[in-house]
């Protein structure tokens, strides 16, 4: 080749290698040089130089960015397809090239390539299979032949010890998403012409937004094969090609699946998505007298978590501070769930309710677990629908109420925790019933459930007024 025939997608002078540098870093007879040239020619012919981002791997081609006059990103060992995924998702009109050796792609990077292929990422992958680790001095690659001597298989690769060479085209051909898979060889000029066609097709597919295209290129590494360039090409044809048969594995007209991201919403729309509820016009903001440490405990599905959220929401609506923390820790075992809510006018320190001043016990295990932790002088509300026993402590106030039955009367047993919350509010005045009723519609997604919950509030308030007021 004459020098001025260098394709335009190559730099004229490899300034990143050194001032005035015109030569590559590759050994004489190395396949990387050929492969680079095929790619640079295709980029030039397709007129995609400006849009192309070339991902350099770790391996002998780590400095591919010395040569390609395109956008360049150098990736960690094996990660070029993941890096290309990131670029592709960020720049939808980019043409991505992931260029990788056999250690990079089929060894350390096996997961990355499988999943990029499986997602049908928009990228052309050029896989240089030279059956060896070139850069690090000639160790075994996943594609090393059985019997082939390398620095880490000095007596030759043994299938029983190191496994068999891996055929990447064959493996990727099992996936649905790739549109183009072909194996080519740099063994002689005729083969190189076929390789050129495959390389161009893979890049054309990118121009046409067809998706994941994979070209495996059998490529000589004379240095580590310990051969002359001529011997290396002969050896490649005689030994690699029988194991890694050349040809097209797949060439689809259309990608099996496509995905288009929706247009990004405007700033205004984004702000609206996250906008807070309008003002609730609360009747009263009853003054919170003392900090509230509330524990709501029951079994999963009783709605203790959402009742806690409801209480915290009511507290905020009344312009107090609040924290809600789900049961988190060993106490979650044994089928009980609990939420701790703190309400205060001041900044709240620890959000952990170790010692509640109001315990809502929705079932037996919850009363067993938390009865002792209530502060002296605190209050325990016991759901008598599910708890037979009495509270043992004498230094706390106790309210007994058939919460589940009240909720059932309202039409929804799951509203028992809302009934409980109502009694808590009626008893302590920490939040007003009006607030609870106004916040419920905001926190319940299913509209049909709003009315029954409001009814549960009314029935519970009535029960409290008739039966619990003044109870010790």
């Amino acid at each position: 080749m004459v020098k001025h025939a260098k394709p335009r997608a190559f730099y004229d002078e490899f300034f990143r290698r050194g001032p005035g540098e015109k030569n590559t870093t590759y050994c004489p007879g190395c396949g990387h040089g050929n492969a680079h040239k095929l790619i640079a020619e295709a980029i030039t012919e397709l007129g995609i130089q400006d849009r192309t981002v070339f991902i350099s791997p770790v391996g002998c081609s780590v400095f591919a960015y010395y040569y390609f006059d395109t956008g360049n990103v150098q990736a960690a060992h094996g990660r070029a397809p993941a890096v290309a995924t990131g670029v592709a998702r960020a720049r939808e009109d980019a043409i991505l090239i992931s260029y990788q050796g056999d250690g990079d792609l089929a060894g350390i990077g096996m997961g990355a390539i499988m999943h990029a292929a499986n997602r049908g990422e928009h990228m052309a992958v050029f896989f240089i299979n030279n059956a060896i680790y070139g850069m690090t001095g000639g160790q075994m690659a996943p594609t090393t032949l059985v019997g082939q001597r390398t620095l880490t298989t000095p007596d030759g690769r043994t299938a029983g010890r190191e496994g068999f060479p891996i055929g990447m085209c064959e493996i990727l051909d099992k996936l649905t998403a790739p549109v183009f898979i072909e194996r080519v060889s740099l063994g002689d000029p005729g083969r190189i012409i076929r390789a050129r066609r495959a390389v161009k097709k893979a890049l054309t597919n990118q121009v046409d937004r067809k998706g994941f295209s994979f070209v495996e290129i059998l490529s000589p590494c004379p240095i580590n094969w310990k051969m002359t360039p001529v011997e290396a090409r002969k050896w490649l044809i005689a030994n690699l090609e029988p194991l890694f048969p050349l040809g097209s594995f797949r060439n689809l007209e259309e990608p099996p699946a496509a995905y288009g991201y929706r247009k990004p919403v405007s700033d205004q729309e984004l702000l609206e998505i996250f906008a807070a509820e309008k003002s609730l016009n609360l009747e009263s903001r009853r003054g919170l007298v003392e900090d509230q440490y509330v524990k709501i405990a029951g079994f999963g599905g009783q709605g203790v978590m959402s009742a806690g959220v409801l209480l915290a929401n009511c507290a905020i609506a009344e312009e107090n501070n609040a924290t809600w923390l789900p049961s988190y820790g060993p106490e979650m075992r044994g089928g009980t769930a609990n939420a701790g809510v703190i309400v205060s006018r001041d900044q709240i320190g620890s959000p952990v309710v170790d010692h509640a001043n109001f315990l809502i016990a929705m079932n037996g295990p919850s009363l067993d677990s938390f009865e002792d932790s209530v502060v002296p002088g605190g209050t325990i509300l016991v759901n008598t629908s599910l708890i037979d026993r009495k509270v043992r402590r004498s230094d706390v106030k106790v309210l007994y109420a058939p919460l589940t039955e009240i909720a059932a009367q309202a039409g929804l047993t799951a509203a028992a925790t809302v009934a409980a919350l109502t009694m808590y509010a009626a008893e302590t005045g920490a939040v007003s019933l009006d607030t609870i009723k106004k916040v419920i519609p905001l926190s319940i997604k299913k509209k049909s459930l709003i009315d029954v919950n409001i009814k549960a509030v009314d029935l519970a308030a009535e029960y409290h007024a008739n039966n619990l007021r003044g109870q010790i």
Partner: protein
Amino acid sequence: MDRQLIKGNEAVVFGALLGGATHFFGYPITPASEIAHAAAQYFNGTGRCFLQAEDEVNAINMIYGAASAGARVMTGSSGPGIALMAEGVSYLAGAELPAVIVDVQRAGPGLGNIWAEQSDYNMVVKGGGHGNYRNIVLAPFSAQEMCDFTYRAFEIAEKYRMTVFILTDAYIGQIMEPVLLPREVRHAPRHDWAVYADRESRGNLVTSILMSTELLSEHNWKLQEKYKKVEAELVEWEEYETGDAEYLFSAFGICARICLSAVHELRNKGIKAGLLRPKTLFPFPEKRFRELAKQVKSVVVVEMNNGQMARDVEHAVRCSIPVLRYNWMGGMVPSTQEVTERAQKDMRG
């Protein structure tokens, strides 16, 4: 009702989107999964991009790619996942790419358990991967700060071309609290170093290799200068009751909340306790610790780990006063009472 009740892990996602984040690449792990869930809903739902990666190693490399292309990109994970990302974070540092990583810490080592710990401090604050690099580390202690810090993180990351970590824990991730969301949407500017796949940026190269020892040495020294600048410009902390304090608590995340309560309890008992809470762990408020060391009798560092931040406090005060370590591990969270009672003994003595 301008304030909304929002879970810490979700506040991260709201803050991120309002802060101009366009890409999220992640892999599920408790107790950070809710970040991924919310990101899947809101990133894809608003025409941004959420993608579940095959693992954390590839997630961080997708981040590397998107950051190379100038996007505001992030992930959320926890200890085991953050450890897997270490190589990628080192590459980000070497290539000077901006990115945001949220670490909702769980208990280790190994698979440990899913309850809260703060034992990723050394890994995250000191770097985590190979090479002479630092991350900027923000330590939120409320749902509000989960939102605010993430909102700001992208601009900080871009300003210094560094990874910004939000180092939080399972408690601050799980807590629901009133949050006031930012009212302005931010966007990434065009960077002169990024690879946009267009003519203007065609000459750009993102890489962390410098083969010559001279050049890599120069690059390393340049990074160290940058970290010094970060230390001079970015350090943030908050103090409570330190004016006349004789004893100082220090803690971050959930432990800072507990210490805040402990300070009030001790003050009620007539003990002059205060709290210095670093909001940035790198840069660390060294100078302020040194100043307070002249005023207080001792510092109590409360952490849910084996005393990882305490070392930085010791270094800051140059052993001029005792630095006491209160440590909990394995997912145990101290109660306010435990901290208060122990401090009461130590602070009288």
